[in-house]
């Protein structure tokens, strides 16, 4: 039983890694379920059971986290960044960003540039924790 859980955890981690890696691409549930090697219905339920949020929500947080970084680390326009991180509509991007971070992309950008830290830690520590529950962690 427990070995089966470990194996399933590992598959879900593989799918989550795929979202971290390929966030800019149009990922969908069938693709991610294939990465995890489980059925689609099983995938959403198991992912949620493993990481306590749906794959869709995880992917949105990943995309918004990347957008937060790009807004402060580059000069690219909000529209370009929206497309860069995998959103296909500026409306959805702005709404999701505001929902997760608590402020609009352009407002967030005014916080100014970010210091260089190893990217994987920046990814883990600056990711907005949840929808509407908390604002972005302050980045110095």
């Amino acid at each position, binding site marked *: 039983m*427990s070995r089966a*859980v*470990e*194996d399933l*955890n*590992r598959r*879900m*981690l*593989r799918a*989550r*890694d795929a979202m*971290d*890696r390929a966030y800019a691409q149009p990922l969908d549930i069938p693709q991610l379920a294939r990465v995890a090697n489980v059925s689609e219905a099983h995938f959403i339920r198991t992912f949620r059971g*493993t*990481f306590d949020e749906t794959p869709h929500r995880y992917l949105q947080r990943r995309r918004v986290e990347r957008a937060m970084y790009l807004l402060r*680390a*580059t000069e690219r326009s909000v529209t370009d960044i929206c497309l860069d991180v995998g959103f296909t509509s500026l409306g959805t991007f702005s709404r999701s960003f505001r929902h997760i971070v608590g402020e609009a992309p352009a407002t967030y950008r005014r916080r100014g540039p970010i210091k*260089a830290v*190893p*990217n*994987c830690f920046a990814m883990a520590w600056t990711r907005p924790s949840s929808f509407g529950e908390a604002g972005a962690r302050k980045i110095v």
Partner: protein
Amino acid sequence: MFNALLISSLYVLDQDKALDFYVGKLGLEVNTDQDLGFMRWLTVNVPGDTRQVLLETPGAPGLDPKTAEQARQLVTKGATGGHLFFTTTDCRKTYDELRAKGVEFTEEPTERPYGIDCGLRDPFGNHIRFSQPLHMAVSAQGDEKPRSRESK
């Protein structure tokens, strides 16, 4: 006070599989592999480096069965925080070699302000990165001076 970091430890779920991966694929060498009776003391190191990584299975007697179960689950969720960071003189070449061996990458080589790095998982879920720091970057001309890079 201290003068070196000698051993750090990483939870693995199976020491034989860990050996296949860390030695067989990542190219580390076995430093010590000894049956202490109560545990198998297994450490590996980068060839030429003195720092060892203890590949330890969570279990009795150090952990009670329930806690060991939780530890194993955290490893498979990638949540134990046991990162290893290696350096290399050629990140892309190493990436290609390891990919050919079937290593599971989480991130392909990417240029950062501090160099080129990438990420992978061990078979159990541990996160590993290796990086080609800027001062080790080698250009086509063999020039090893630091070069400025755009952050991605």
